[in-house]
């Protein structure tokens, strides 16, 4: 049995259980109760986890198919698919900006900045299909009718590993995506997402810029002292604007005019 399963060749293991070599070991003993906080709901009943996976995947697939059809049907694909090589140096600039705890100016977002555009294109056109391809390789029906397909991916266990790595990338993207939406030009982002445009008349006209480390984490560092970071004032003015239900702002920041773009020019859809 041991040789049949090649147990012990795994590269990642989430259990302390060892497959014993001296006695019969059945799949039942391998079952584990995992909290739904990190696993699909169902606890020990992995059957329920399968159903959750099936239902959510059906939605994910239909949603993705419609989304991609509309992307190409409306020309909006230009927002996601880079058409110029200079996206890479610009994305690098953007990355170094973020890594030095700064935020690229709003003018970089047309409507996405280079790094964002690359990330979206990767997730929509590479990671999504990748999950579809590796996931299908886990089906015994496909293994039985098209063995070449499983071999192409290096076998079922290799496909499982790839599928899992894809999940980690998806989860990492989701966390990072939501985090940055709330941290990088959040007024414009949320307005763009919810209302479809920048909505300056509802949000006030002063987009924040500068160090995001100040704007999200350390009210006590930046807010009260204000002058330590360039955006201390911007941060305060934003909270004031929000308090006044997005009434036109009272802020008195000294942002460069170039950082403030007309909202209409941001509605670039190609």
């Amino acid at each position, binding site marked *: 049995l041991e040789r049949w399963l090649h147990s012990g060749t795994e590269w990642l293991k989430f259990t302390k259980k060892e497959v014993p070599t001296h006695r019969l070991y059945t799949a039942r003993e391998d079952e584990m109760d995992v909290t739904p906080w990190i696993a699909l709901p169902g606890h020990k009943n992995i059957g329920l986890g399968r159903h959750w996976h099936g239902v959510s995947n059906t939605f994910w697939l239909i949603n993705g198919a419609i989304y991609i059809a509309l992307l190409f049907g409306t020309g909006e694909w230009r927002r996601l698919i880079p058409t110029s090589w200079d996206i890479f140096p610009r994305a690098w600039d953007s990355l170094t900006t973020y890594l030095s705890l700064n935020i690229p100016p709003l003018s970089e977002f047309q409507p996405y900045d280079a790094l964002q555009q690359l990330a979206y294109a990767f997730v929509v056109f590479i990671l999504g299909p990748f999950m579809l391809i590796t996931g299908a390789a886990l089906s*015994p029906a496909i293994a*039985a009718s098209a063995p070449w397909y499983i071999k192409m991916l290096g076998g079922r266990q290799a496909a499982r590993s790839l599928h899992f790595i894809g999940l980690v990338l998806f989860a990492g993207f989701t966390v990072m995506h939501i985090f940055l939406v709330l941290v990088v030009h959040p007024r414009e982002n949320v307005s763009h997402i919810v209302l479809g445009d920048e909505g300056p008349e509802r949000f006030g006209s002063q987009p924040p810029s500068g160090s995001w480390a100040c704007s999200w984490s350390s009210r006590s560092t930046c807010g009260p002292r204000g002058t330590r970071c360039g955006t201390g004032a911007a941060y305060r003015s934003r909270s004031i604007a929000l308090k006044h239900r997005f009434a036109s702002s009272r802020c008195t920041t000294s942002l460069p005019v170039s950082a403030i773009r007309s909202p209409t020019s941001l509605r670039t859809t190609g």
Partner: protein
Amino acid sequence: VNGAPPTEKESADYVRMKDDDFQDWRLEVGGLVRRPLSLSLEDIRALPSQVQITKHNCVQGWCGVAKWRGVRVSEILKLAEPLPEAKYLKFTSHGLSQYSYGGKPLEPFYEVIDQILANHQQTILAYEMNDQPLPLPHGAPLRLRVETQLGYKMVKYLRSLELIADYRTVGEGQGGSREDAQFFGRGAEI
């Protein structure tokens, strides 16, 4: 798969037959058929056999490759002559299901497949694994292999094959012990 070999408590018959090298073991084929059968291991070995090297895919994620020899389920069906209303095949094990729905007493493990799966060319009743008589932990003396499905469909320690009209009228009506008690779902091809 469906567990360790049946114990004395689960099936005294099985333990007795095992100790006797399965001389008295029979596969009972019944239900909606014109000719009910009671096949010994010799009878089954005398039928046309086929060999297949396939990967066993568990719902838990693990898998293993083995070489199986057995008789196609379609050969058994030819002999038994199912009635037209026999849409499904119910395979029952000597072993008990490990779980039950709502804490009911444990029943013999069973799984249901439809006629299309049953007539698939790789759906066999296997009596050899890797050129040896089917080892005890792998379902001796006879087990089901349905290569397009996940492992839980492939009943071990076979006792009977019953042709039925509808899976909803047996067990808890979900199409198998795993489906009844553990929500595994009848669609075991993904």
